[in-house]
């Protein structure tokens, strides 16, 4: 079985990478999880996951004649993690459309693929993870621009037959009246609210320590909220081979 989720928001600063790794670690208690940093232009997952020093990254896989994806897969915190490099030169040389083959290869041997997506919808490389995923998890903050951009992500996703698995409110503060905001937001999203993650010093401290939140502060309220989100996420049981074929057959033209 395998299902690929894009963790997306359309807007920067909502905590997508923190959310991707936290959901990944929580899901890893039940599933075989692979996390891919698919934010190829602004990669940062490696700094969150003890991977800042690794040599081989997704960029090396995506270049012409690149290494097989297995060379960029690292075991961390009970998951398989595929980090992306931060060099803009490497990004320019990489062909994002090869991500399709990467996801297809990974799909053969995992239960859940989480694609940490770009904070924009303005380029083909940024939208590709949403195209490839089965469903998106939309990361929101209780602000008008975050909700507006989240709605745009959902519309882009459904244009490519990618569903919405749920919404995740992040950086929620006491005065945000999330109990009123979330139900109102849910009316416009296909999926329900997976969790409301409180704004937390533990998240910032984990980031500074270069560790995923669930490894650094597993007892924090934010970590508990992510575990709740993971348990609310029903992973569909689908045949790996069929899913891999679907990724491979996705019609994406070569770069001009």
């Amino acid at each position: 079985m395998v299902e690929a989720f894009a963790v997306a928001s359309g807007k920067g600063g909502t905590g997508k990478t923190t959310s991707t790794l936290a959901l990944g670690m929580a899901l890893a208690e039940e599933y075989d999880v692979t996390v891919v940093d698919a934010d190829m232009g602004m990669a940062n997952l490696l700094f969150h996951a003890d991977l800042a020093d690794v040599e081989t990254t997704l960029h090396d896989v995506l270049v012409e004649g690149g290494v097989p994806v297995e060379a960029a897969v690292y075991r961390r915190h009970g998951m398989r993690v595929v980090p992306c490099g931060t060099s803009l030169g490497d990004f320019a040389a990489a062909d994002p459309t090869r991500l399709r083959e990467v996801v297809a290869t990974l799909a053969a041997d995992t239960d859940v693929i989480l694609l940490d997506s770009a904070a924009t919808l303005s380029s083909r490389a940024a939208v590709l993870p949403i195209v490839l995923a089965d469903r998106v998890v939309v990361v929101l903050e209780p602000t008008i621009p975050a909700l507006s951009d989240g709605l745009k992500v959902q519309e882009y996703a459904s244009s490519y037959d990618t569903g919405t698995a749920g919404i995740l409110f992040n950086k929620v503060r006491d005065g945000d009246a999330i109990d009123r905001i979330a139900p109102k937001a849910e009316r416009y999203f296909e999926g329900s609210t997976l969790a409301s993650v409180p704004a937390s010093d533990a998240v910032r401290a984990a980031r500074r320590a270069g560790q995923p939140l669930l490894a650094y502060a597993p007892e924090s309220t934010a970590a508990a909220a992510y575990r709740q989100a993971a348990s609310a996420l029903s992973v569909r049981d689908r045949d790996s081979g069929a899913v891999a074929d679907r990724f491979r057959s996705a019609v994406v033209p070569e770069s001009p």
Partner: protein
Amino acid sequence: MKLPDGRLLRSRVVSDPRTVLVDALDRRVTGYAVLEPQGSLLLDDDGRGVLTFADGVPVVAYHTGSERGGPPALADLAASGPYRLDLYAVRSGALDAVHDHEVFRIPPGMAAERLVGDQSLADRTRKVAPGDRTVERARDEESGGERSVGAVEAFLDDERKIEAIREQAREEAQERAREWGFDEVS
């Protein structure tokens, strides 16, 4: 709402209302900004948004199309950029009558926090806000934060606007799918 004449400080097209908030705060403007959405999402939504400032801190929000004031006016302004922006300075006290409209007032950091989603700008604005405005903010929070989240709730209550945002995103996604060659992806 009747606005006093002012001295035009700036007139240009901006993509995001954040620009005007930063500008007014940095220059400690006492005056008002008129934001007129260009290429509006809703064909019949031809109103303009007005934000007043006292020493750079937002005081009143009003929308001429919906005729709503306060937090709901921020929601009316949302997500309909780019905007034609005119920023005016007025003499001290010229906006007192406007600022007396209690229901039009917004908490100091609300436009930055909710309309623009910029927490650090909101914090910076609150620091600049005079003591009595800080008290106003504290009262809002004590009363369950009702006013501080009002703009987000008003935005989510506006089904027409949300549908317009979705419709525009759908069209944009389909157009780009063709442009990027994603149209045959399934």
